[in-house]
């Protein structure tokens, strides 16, 4: 039972890690909660589902949905965040709440408030390893999420463009001083953040076999919690935070009740904010003057 729940937790956690990675990058530029993150990828997942239900080949549908989401991320940055970059910190947050509400309502106009089931893109057979039932589906989801996270962190660590992203996330002004075209990199971060989110959102929908308008908001909160657990601004921490959150969630729903799955996210968030706001991995980097 506990092994089963752990496997479930790791699967969900790997998806959260993927979403948190994209969220964390954007959050470190925005320096606040990006309320629109989840709703951006909710939109992408709905586009993907619509295409699939019209018989578009899965690969094409996924690529198109991710491209749309990246574009959406870029447009939101241009219209709602960039004009406010030099404003006080509360202004972009309100702007983000507005964007989230618009996205949610537009999605509701197009697709209605109902929940849809998501086409089964991955096999759902179950293999049995010494008494532990291991659904192939979870193995697939975990490997895809892990591959994306690892590829992405390698890009951030090794490639020139990855260095530019990390520099911009830490200090936009200083990044310009070393010759990094910060505006272009910020656009790229929003596109990538949204793209990773949609990839995570599609995996989530496949795993739970559901697409619904509310998945955006709960995704935002989970990504935010994962980032707080890992320490805001620490991308590896965000991934580990996501994984941990998935495990805690599935243990709660396995041993207490699955009705508390979302509640536990908020509980973790509140506990972290009260007792260790710098995160479990958050090293206090003192700004010495």
């Amino acid at each position: 039972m506990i092994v089963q729940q752990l496997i479930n937790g790791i699967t969900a956690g790997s998806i959260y890690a993927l979403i948190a990675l994209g969220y964390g990058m954007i959050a470190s530029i925005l320096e606040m909660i990006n309320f629109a993150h989840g709703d951006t990828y909710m939109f992408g997942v709905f586009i993907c589902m619509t295409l699939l239900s019209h018989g578009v080949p899965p690969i094409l549908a996924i690529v198109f949905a991710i491209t749309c989401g990246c574009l959406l991320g870029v447009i939101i940055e241009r219209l709602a965040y960039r004009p406010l970059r030099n404003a006080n910190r509360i202004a972009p947050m309100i702007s983000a709440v507005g964007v989230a509400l618009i996205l949610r309502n537009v999605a509701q106009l197009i697709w209605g408030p109902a929940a849809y089931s998501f086409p089964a893109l991955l096999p759902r057979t179950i293999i049995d390893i010494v008494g532990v039932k291991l659904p192939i589906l979870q193995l697939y989801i975990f490997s895809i999420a892990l591959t994306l996270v690892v590829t992405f962190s390698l890009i951030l660590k090794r490639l020139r463009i990855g260095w530019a992203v990390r520099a911009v996330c830490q200090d936009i002004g200083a990044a310009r001083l070393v010759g990094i075209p910060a505006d272009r990199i910020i656009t790229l971060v929003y596109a990538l953040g949204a793209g990773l989110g949609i990839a995570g959102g599609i995996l989530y929908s496949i795993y739970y076999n559901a697409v619904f308008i509310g998945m955006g908001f709960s995704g935002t909160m989970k990504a935010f919690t994962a980032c707080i657990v890992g320490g805001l601004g620490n991308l590896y921490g965000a991934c580990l935070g996501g994984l941990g959150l998935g495990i805690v969630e599935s243990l709660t729903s396995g041993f207490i009740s699955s009705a508390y799955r979302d509640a536990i996210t908020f509980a973790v968030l509140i506990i972290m904010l009260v007792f260790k706001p710098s995160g479990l991995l958050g090293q206090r980097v003192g700004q010495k003057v």
Partner: protein
Amino acid sequence: MLRVDNIIVSYDGITQSLKGVSLEVGSGEFVSLLGGNGSGKSTTLRTICGWLKPISGKIEFEGHRIDGLPAEQVLRRGVATVPESRRLFPKMTVRENLEIGAYTRHDSEIKSDVERMLDIFPSLRERLGQLAGTLSGGEQQMLATSRALMSRPKLLLMDEPSMGLAPALVASVLKIACRINAMGTAILMVEQNANAALRITNRAYVLENGNVVISGKSAALLNNEKMKDVYLGNLSRRESSI
């Protein structure tokens, strides 16, 4: 090489922080920009480096207008900056901070330039793998300076390199500035410590309320009566006037 012509800068669009500043830095020259708190020294530097846009006036570097260009373009023209409070990338290692300083370069000498910096600043060598945010103030200043030099600039802008450092370190930071200048890089340095700055630079400008009020050869300014009174801390005179 650098010609700042009558620039007016305002942060809020109402009050002018610079009310028409003009200055020049020749090729290979070491020039200091002096003045009290709020006189506009740092604002001048921030405008030259591209962080701020002047309302009017122009800035030319090697004959090309650079005012209004974003900072990343100014750097590509050959003007590197060591900003106020260093602005390192705190979550990158010392080595990464050095290498990212060469972001605009594509040549094969980046690795050997890192070595060159470690020769100039030996205390950074043992900290290569450490996060920049964990360095001491003096080490951060050295890292910020070498990060700027990694772009191989023709002109280096330094904003109060001695700020917040222990007196012993101030001397060594200024000595390093002299060494960089001796290797052929022109420097425009904002400094609060007028005495020390005038002893090492060729020329100096003094700002007051957003205007250049005194300028000339540093050696001459050391004996200028007004300089002695206001900026060089002529204690005997000040005490006698009380």
